[in-house]
């Protein structure tokens, strides 16, 4: 079963990456850009056919390694 996980910085946490990208895009003339924030994206395939179980496993990976819970949020989606 395959899932995607998106990891985003919590609101109010400084996003230096997003900030630089935003300034650059605006300097390039795309002034309709209101806001951009940068995060991570994972595509994960697990050997598990029960969706609930699979999601549990992915959740564990997120908590244990993929996500820094102190500054990041995450969302798991089946794909």
């Amino acid at each position, binding site marked *: 079963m395959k899932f995607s996980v998106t990891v985003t910085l919590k609101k109010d946490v400084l996003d*230096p*990456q997003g900030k*630089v*990208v935003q300034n*650059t895009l605006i300097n*390039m003339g795309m002034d309709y850009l209101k806001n951009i924030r*940068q995060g991570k994206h994972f595509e994960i395939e697990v050997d598990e056919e029960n969706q609930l179980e699979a999601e549990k496993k992915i959740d564990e990976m997120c908590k244990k390694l993929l996500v820094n819970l102190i500054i990041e949020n995450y969302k798991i989606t089946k794909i």
Partner: protein
Amino acid sequence: MKSTVIVFPGSNCDRDIAVALERMQFKNQMVWHKETTLPKSDLIVIPGGFSYGDYLRSGAIAGKSLIIDEVIKAAKSGCLILGICNGFQILTETGLLKGTLLRNKNLKFINKDIHIRVFNSNTKFTNKYKSNQILKINIAHNEGNYFTDVKHLEKLKSENLIAFRYCDEKGNINNNCNPNGSLDNIAGIFNDNKNILGMMPHPERMVDEMIANKDGVNLFSSLIN
């Protein structure tokens, strides 16, 4: 010889390269990235560092800056271009050099002295080196893992466009002496016309005996030659 060093916000080896160039008798000028014209020069250097923090992809944002259009024009008209470390990454982002530099295989920043072997000593950049000469040189990067497609790799080999490859102190080339996972141990490449060189190691750090060795000197004296 006149040289120009392009300075981006976040460049941090700009002074180092300027010092090395001046030491090697280049008449050097620094050019801020917001400029829209380049002074006439024989050599343009894009220095190491973390342009724009390397926050999107290393070299990506610098690759879109105003001055880069001028660098591309100069390159097309045959001016010599040297990209070191972040400069190499920027050159790949502009398309002046093909391929890309991925994260080091251990995902860690690496700073140490390693060995490289000169693979083509018959260019404007390397003619003072002996062919197959082994150099001890400093690397300092997060993304030095060179990657390109099979076709381009073949071309690099068949047209002698590989400048340097990582090796051990005896010159052997294998996985153990590949610091970052780079394809075929590639440490530096030329473009088709060999007027552009991109390399991850820092020759400007190897010009002063008190600080390191002088294995980088011949790169600069080749250019003057």
